[in-house]
């Protein structure tokens, strides 16, 4: 959890969606030029036309398959223009959207799982949207799937943790605690962009407001962390909180694909991950009871590196020196972190020394490494938008 960060992206997201998606409404599926018939089955997603005029678009969906499905109208970078969930077998639903000319995709998700079956479509005529470097659209799309995959993979790991809590197994819960956070830590800026999930799952006690009662209002990972490491006991309250954590994170997983992600928000998100490390992790504040800060640290760096790697084709063209420096500093920080792996851990091991055993000089060394990376990383957004 971070010091107050404005959920800017969330606000932007709401505005963008309001502007672009009219409404989703029930309809009989008839319509004029703007209507696209979508026939969903368990293994197909057929569309009646691949080109339609910009403006008011209607997707008339019929689910002919045996599974419940979802249908999405997507931007090329996988942002959602409009969506309809829970379309049962044999039913029809309609969704509508206001779109500008440009490329889009229609996706059906039989069973409401995975990336879905996709069709490229195009809105023509009318006002044109500014053309973005297609490599950047690709970067955003790949980052979006990364974020989704992180959330998808996190839930089962969280369940290992919360199951242990529910069973009252203190040791098993302690062991599962840090791994349950990795996916979240890797993609934190996106999760934070919603504004409401982070305070439920990742707040520290000192992050509560004056009018909040820690006994009632403090929820999430760190509340359980305190129970396991400091109070050393699991009661009914903790078991309830574990279930609540599952629920809140399921909500996160469901929404994460709808976040507004742009090339600059990816770049700035990467920098923010390093800022997280610089302000919370190197001080040992984040995991004050479990001292698993280096696990979060590593996950933050990995998340930043992923965003950078996806933007690198464009960034290295616009600012080759910056890309070279970032490659170097990511490697250096990784090497530095590696020195604090317990035992003979490999490069992808998360078995780190407890942070309370990391001395002051080593902490400074880690912070120096973070500064060395975060400073050039703060220039990545500019390198992504520059020129062209």
């Amino acid at each position: 959890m971070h010091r107050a960060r404005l959920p800017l992206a969330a606000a932007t997201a709401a505005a963008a969606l309001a502007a672009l998606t009219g409404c989703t409404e029930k309809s009989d599926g008839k319509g004029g030029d703007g209507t696209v018939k979508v026939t969903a089955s368990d293994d197909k997603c057929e569309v009646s036309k691949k080109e339609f005029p910009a403006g008011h678009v209607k997707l008339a969906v019929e689910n002919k398959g045996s599974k419940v499905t979802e249908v999405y109208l997507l931007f090329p970078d996988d942002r959602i223009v409009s969506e309809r969930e829970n379309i049962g077998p044999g039913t029809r639903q309609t969704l509508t959207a206001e779109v500008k000319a440009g490329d889009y995709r229609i996706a059906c998700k039989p069973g409401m799982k995975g990336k879905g079956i996709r069709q490229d479509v195009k809105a023509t005529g009318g006002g044109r949207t500014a053309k973005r470097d297609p490599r950047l659209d690709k970067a955003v799309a790949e980052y979006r799937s990364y974020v989704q995959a992180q959330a998808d993979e996190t839930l089962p790991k969280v369940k290992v943790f919360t199951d242990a809590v529910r069973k009252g197994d203190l040791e098993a819960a302690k062991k599962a605690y840090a791994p349950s956070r990795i996916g979240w830590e890797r993609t934190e800026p996106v999760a934070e962009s919603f504004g409401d999930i982070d305070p439920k799952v990742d707040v520290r006690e000192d992050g509560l407001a004056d009018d909040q009662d820690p006994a009632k209002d403090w929820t999430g990972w760190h509340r359980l962390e305190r129970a396991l490491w400091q109070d050393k006991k699991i009661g009914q309250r903790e078991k309830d909180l574990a279930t609540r954590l599952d629920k809140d994170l399921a909500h996160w997983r469901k929404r994460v694909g709808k976040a507004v992600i742009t090339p600059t928000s990816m770049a700035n998100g990467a920098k923010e991950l390093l800022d997280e490390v610089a302000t919370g992790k190197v001080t040992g504040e984040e995991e004050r009871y479990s001292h698993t800060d280096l696990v979060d640290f590593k996950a933050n760096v990995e998340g930043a590196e992923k965003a950078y790697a996806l933007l690198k084709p464009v960034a290295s063209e616009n600012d080759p020196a910056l890309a070279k420096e970032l490659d170097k500093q990511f490697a250096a920080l990784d090497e530095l972190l590696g020195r604090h792996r317990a035992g003979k851990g490999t490069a992808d091991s998360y078995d780190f020394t407890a942070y309370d055993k990391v001395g002051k000089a080593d902490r400074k060394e880690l912070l120096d490494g973070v500064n060395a990376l975060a400073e050039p990383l703060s220039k990545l957004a500019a390198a992504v938008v520059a020129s062209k």
Partner: protein
Amino acid sequence: MSEETSTGAPSRRSLLGWGGAGLVLGAAAAGGAVAVTREESGAGDAVPAASTGAAVDFHGPHQAGIATPVQDRLHFAAFDVKTEDREEFVALLKEWTRAAARMTAGHAVGEGAFGGLAEAPPDDTGEALGLRPSRLTLTLGFGPSLFEKHGERFGLAGRRPKALVDLPKFPGDNLDRARSDGDLCVQACADDPQVAVHAIRNLARIGFGRVAIRWSQLGFGKTSSTTPDAQTPRNLMGFKDGTRNIAGTDEARLARHVWVGEKDGPDWMTGGSYLVARRIRMNVETWDRTSLREQEDVFGRDKGEGAAVGKAEERDEPFLKAMKPDAHVRLAHPDSNGGATILRRGYSFTDGTDGLGRLDAGLFFLAYQRDVREGFIPVQRSLAATDALNEYIQHVGSAVFAIPPGVRDKDDWWGRALFTGKA
């Protein structure tokens, strides 16, 4: 230095180089004329030369910030070198030189603090926008560890000056290694604390990845920056001190005691100097409950006028034998130390309280000399052994640096002679 005398109202404070300095040297007698800086030519808006807002020439045979009249405020920073690449390090020195030339002239770093790409952080941090140059000086030094730890990689093996010695351990030292040493140092002095802090902050930022701040110290000295004041400033113990510092305009004494001469060697240090920095904590609470008589005996001066024992005026030549044998002024006087003379430039510091409610305050002692072995070391040996003041002070931080000669012109850079082998 290309500074000119342009006022008839000498500021003794700026002349004397306030070091609270009497802590190490506390003798009598004032120096000569005063030096007043002029604005750097072409440095933008004209600023009255006598104003504390003026710019000090960055270029010259010696680095500014040594003989320059002492400014009100200090931000001193010691850095560790993080890069192992010689070219990267040299590039940093060049970037720092460019940024320092701009900042001392009152300009923002790089493309400035605003108006650039919206997606990029600005080059300059911006907190000095609208402030005058404030006589900012930036003085760079190289620590012994630069030559030892990085010597091979940077091609500096064997280039460490003999005069850049490791200080011996003095009795009573209680040094915190986290507040001592450093591969590099930058001394930022200015009449406005925000200007000094801005300078260090921007240099640190430019350096991230190549160097990292190891420790830093803020200091204050004068309480009034506009009114010329004939009084010797007082240290935090309430005593006037440093009445006999080397004047910034006294070329003969500077040449004799401060600037490294051609024959001193090595060549790359000619025109440079050596800096000793000590963080000296004062036990102000116990000092404050010490009787006036003991306080005056400890220093060997009276508290009101600042005159040496048995004398009437502050600047009367002291009669050392009239003082107690362990009086601070007596032990620190050049006559007690074979003529050892150093140029002091220290500042008072107060870093809040120490968690026990004691004021974390004292003197950040900065002394420039031609050779540490003939300057600080003999003086401090004599003080550390017997100075009555030791009951009330403790040396808690220590560092020594070789200060290379000045940056000559716009094409020159800090440390060029060291790295290129050409003086």
